[in-house]
């Protein structure tokens, strides 16, 4: 998803992984117990992304 944004001439200025699980904590604890450690990356995590469309001047901080 992030890569798709980047391909559209969007300058991604911030990606914030909240690490607040989508599921209730007790369910995540359960998953961590039953899922092998090398598969924990398969859990779903929320992110918040800020990107900016190029303004064509080369100064992407200008708004």
């Amino acid at each position, binding site marked *: 998803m992030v890569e798709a944004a980047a391909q559209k001439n*969007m300058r991604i200025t911030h990606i914030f992984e909240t690490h607040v699980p989508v599921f209730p904590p007790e369910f995540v604890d359960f998953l961590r117990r039953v899922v092998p450690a090398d598969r924990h990356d398969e859990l779903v995590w*929320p*992110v*918040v992304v800020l990107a900016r469309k190029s303004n064509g001047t080369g100064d992407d901080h200008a708004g």
Partner: protein
Amino acid sequence: MPVDAERLREEIRKVYSEVVRDPKRGYHFHTGPEYAVERLGYPAQALAELPGSVTAPFAGVGNPLAMGEPRPGETVVDIGAGSGMDTFLAARSVGPTGRVIAVDMTDAMLDRGRESAALSGTPWVEYRKGLAEALPVSDGAADLVISNGVINLALDKDGVFREAFRVLRPGGRLQIADIVVHHDIPPAAREDIAIWTA
């Protein structure tokens, strides 16, 4: 067999129509203002000032406005606005000289959003029916595009970003909250419509 886009949309409409009708029923995702404040860091006071009809069906996964609020007079497009918690927070920021275009594909959400705009006295919020992959917004109209927990539901994610890019003015911002996995999703899971809507 690949998931059929229209069938997926219909399943999503069913789920979120039910969220509007009965937001506290208990779903596989969190809902409501308490979750938004306690888990996602939304400002409690700002949510308390919004109608319950706006905040109760909230089912986002983060706070896209935490990256910066729109400025007075700006035009904001909310992709998959739902009942409109982010929409109405943005409306408060842009004020009557600004505009918030709330796009959603679910009639129940559109009805709720329009009622809330009337109830809250914010005629600068306009709900429009449409898809994330085909936004009913003109080119370059938006200073800010926001979205919360919607792009993961779209089959054509590249198409969503293409549309967001199209409607943004040069220098405009895209602020999204969504969910990701760090591994590729197995083909069998990609083809399971129950997992898409879960």
